[in-house]
């Protein structure tokens, strides 16, 4: 029988919900005990404080423009965001320093990601001390169209006696020397290689910000076989492609060290490959002493953007919260008072049915807490005061789904249906509305999460989270509970305090006896469309008025007769 199927399904759904809850709680507990998680979500900068890192530009005397600094801020923000939704704050200080504030104590990986400034340039090699030179493998399919060479950056006249002296005296085994590799872009540079080799390099020919994407992986031969060697693939934008093509055009005609170009990362030569061919498609591949981790790190640094200037960490300090714990507690108390008011209002509006709203809100709140705790452990999500307020409000808005649902059930009751069929028919209409409207919220959440940065991203996560929880709770809790409650005589017979009393809902015109006999017992055809039903249901007043007068203008289907019990289905 249809009725018992609905009840069985409702019971099964509730069991599944319980399973999900136990699983969530279990994962959280396991995380708290073994995985470094906690039972409470982590708090953001404003509530917990954190670490403040001040980065100072390392320019070799040149002035720093505002544009360079704000570009660097944007890039560092992307890198910080890549480590999770922690709502870090990044700003400038005194017009040139960058201040990064991270909640809690950042781990080494996060610190390294921020500090690695990844200022990457390509320079032609003038002189080198190494004989063991790695080679680039140009991507196949080259079109060797020569472009007009720029003023020759491989000209050995760049080497002044002073530069030669610096080159001879530099000690590439000390870390001080590797940090010294700074020079303006249009000047030659003495730099060290990671393997200890020394170089005199020409001016910058291709800047790192012309890289549009970078990937890492194991190199493959043209037949698709793996060579087992880790490489970084660089994809230049249009400007980088043409610049790189002209460099390789010139260098491939030279011999010895001058055939090499150097990839300089933060003043250090990470690779100085020979130029075997002219690369015109803007997709060179760097091979060197990479392993899986180091090739990925380099590719990430290149992809998240090379900073326009290099930075050095000037200071690192713990900072306290700007908002005292009183703010959080006040916020929570305010939320609690608000939710108590919601409870009172629900009871006033929906009587005992209000208890279903309250129970649903409690389930939604519990689910939100568990998921936020989980995200805080796994995805670095942190709650700011604004986030707490947002969650409280979002849970309040969740109540709309229940209200839409209850109002549809009442609409069905007003049409004289029995409770059990009202619940099922009302559900079908309500869920469609709930899906459509929640899809709008979900769309906002997904788009903002993908596109936006900083605290807007955090907001998007909160919005998406509460929307999904809303749908889960209304489908897996509210509706099954209503289905089961509809079986209870208290609700089925429309007790005055149940909130579902047909007499109070104005269904009186059908006569008492009729709503005591649930129409669920009557077999129903499934053909009737919701639309036709809607058109019919909106004319109750007309029908009443029509019944009072002799003038019936509608077709017979519109009159109230026992055929009305022909509902959609259960």
């Amino acid at each position, binding site marked *: 029988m249809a009725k018992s199927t609905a009840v069985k399904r409702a019971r099964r759904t509730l069991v599944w919900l319980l399973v999900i809850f136990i699983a969530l709680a279990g994962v959280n507990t396991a995380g708290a005990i073994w995985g470094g998680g906690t039972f409470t979500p982590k708090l953001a900068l404003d509530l917990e*404080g954190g670490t403040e890192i001040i980065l100072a530009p390392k320019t070799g005397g040149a002035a720093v423009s505002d544009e360079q600094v*704000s570009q660097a801020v*944007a890039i560092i*923000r992307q890198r910080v965001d890549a480590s999770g939704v922690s709502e870090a*704050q990044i*700003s*400038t*200080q*005194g*017009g040139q320093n960058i201040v990064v*504030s991270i909640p809690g104590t950042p781990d080494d990986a996060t610190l390294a990601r921020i500090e690695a400034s990844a200022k990457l340039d390509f320079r032609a090699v003038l002189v080198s001390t190494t004989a063991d030179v790695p080679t680039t493998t140009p991507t196949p399919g080259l079109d060797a169209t020569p472009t007009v060479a720029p003023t020759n950056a491989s000209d050995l006249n760049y080497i002044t006696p002073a530069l030669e002296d610096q080159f001879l005296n530099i000690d590439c085994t000390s870390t001080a020397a590797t940090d010294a590799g700074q020079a303006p872009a249009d000047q030659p540079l003495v730099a060290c290689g990671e393997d200890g080799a020394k170089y005199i390099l020409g001016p910058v020919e291709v800047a790192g910000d012309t890289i549009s994407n970078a990937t890492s992986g194991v190199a493959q031969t043209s037949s698709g076989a793996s060579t087992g060697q880790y490489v970084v693939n660089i994809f230049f934008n249009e400007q980088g492609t043409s610049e790189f093509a002209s460099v390789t055009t010139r260098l491939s005609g030279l011999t010895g060290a001058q055939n090499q170009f150097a990839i300089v990362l933060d003043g250090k030569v990470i690779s100085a490959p020979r130029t075997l061919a002219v690369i015109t498609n803007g997709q060179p591949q760097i091979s060197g002493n990479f392993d899986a981790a180091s090739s990925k790190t380099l590719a990430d640094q290149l992809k998240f953007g090379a900073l326009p200037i290099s930075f050095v960490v000037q200071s690192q300090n*713990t*900072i*306290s919260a700007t908002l005292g714990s009183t*703010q959080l507690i*006040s*916020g929570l108390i305010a*939320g609690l008072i*608000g*939710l108590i008011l919601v409870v009172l*209002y629900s009871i006033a*509006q929906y009587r005992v049915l209000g208890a279903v709203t309250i129970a649903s809100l409690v389930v939604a709140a519990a689910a939100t807490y568990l998921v936020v705790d989980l995200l805080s452990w796994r995805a670095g999500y942190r709650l700011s*005061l*604004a986030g707490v*307020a947002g969650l*409280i*409000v979002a849970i*309040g*808005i969740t*109540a*709309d789904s229940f*209200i*839409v649902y209850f*109002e549809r059930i009442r*609409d069905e009751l007003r049409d004289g249906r029995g409770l059990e069929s009202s619940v099922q028919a009302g559900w079908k209409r309500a869920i469609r*509305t709930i899906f459509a*409207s929640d*899809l*709008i919220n979900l769309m*906002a959440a997904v*788009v903002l999460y993908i*596109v*936006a*940065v900083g*605290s*807007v991203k955090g*907001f998007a996560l909160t919005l998406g989270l509460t929307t999904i929880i809303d749908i889960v709770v209304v489908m897996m809790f509210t509706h099954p509970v209503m289905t089961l409650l509809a079986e209870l005589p208290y609700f089925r017979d429309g007790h005055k305090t149940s909130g579902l009393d047909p007499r*109070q*809902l*104005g269904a009186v015109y059908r006569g008492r006896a009729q709503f005591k006999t649930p129409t669920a017992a009557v077999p129903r055809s499934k053909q009737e*469309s919701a*639309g036709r039903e*809607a*058109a019919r249901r*909106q004319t*109750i*007043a007309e029908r009443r*008025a029509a019944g009072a*007068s002799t003038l019936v*203008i509608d077709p017979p289907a519109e009159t109230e007769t026992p055929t009305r019990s022909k509902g959609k289905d259960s």
Partner: protein
Amino acid sequence: MASFSDLGNDLYTGKRSFNIVGRRKLWYAIAGLLILVSVVGPFLRGGFVFGIEFSGGSQFSISQVSNASQQAGIDAVKSVDPAVVPLVSTLGQSGIRIQTDQLDDAESNQVRDALAAAYNVQPSDVTINFIGPTWGADITGQAIRGLLIFIVLAAVFMAIYFRTWKIAVSAMVALLHDLVITAGIYGITGFEITPAAVIGFLTILGYSLYDTVVVFDKIRENTVEWGDKATRTFGETVNLAVNQTLVRSINTSVVAMLPVASILVIGAFVLGAGTLRDISLALLIGIFVGTYSTIFIASPLYAQLRQNEPKVKKIDQRVLSQRANREKPAETRASAEQLKA
């Protein structure tokens, strides 16, 4: 609450009906006035006030203080200018950092002296620095890009789901109305626009469209079969749907506004200015205006956009002429209106 549930019944059956769609010129006039006030008001008051997170500000740092109390710093700044909301945090073991809106030189010196006195150090031990915005142009740029993409997607979704672009247009007009008014309130009251307020703003944006979809889904249900056999005009059909969802609209907005209102009251009157006040003001106004605009702007506008379609016009004319022919008493709408009176 018996009278309220009676109202719900009457609205549903059509026994009682508020003529919302018909009085659209009144609602448009009110909306026009509110928008005018929201645009002109902030300029009269002196423009929007942006928080330190947007505009940057002054930073005072003191190292080696014996008593790193945050409250002392707040009090010292307030003694110079009570309107400034300082962000005070301790730095390391014994450092203190106070951030304020950008102050002019005279005020900076006053604050420096006040802080020196509060923390028992020489004024020269207080370093003053300018700090840039934490909410940089990149966040704004990306957020606006995201919003534009979302709004286009939402409009396309609504046009497809409701099978008419006119609903999408109506919803967007209502959305614009909500955002202008919410922003206007900030400009008029002079509340600082902080990241928390912007987050509140974004929540409103989602809520406004969400609420519109809920009400329009009822309009869709009621109008999907509207056609040659209709006994009411298109406008009246839309009006009935709006009335039938009125109880839901009221209940939803009350339930959503209750927690916000209590956060606003506690945030503004107990704690003073800060995150909670910033976010809850935007939300409270936005939820109210968002619910209001769905009923009084989007729905009448939709009815108006449709009523000049040839098919709609034809049916409306037939309905009206039939009604006129039948003359008063049996006519159902007339009787309904009499009941109302």
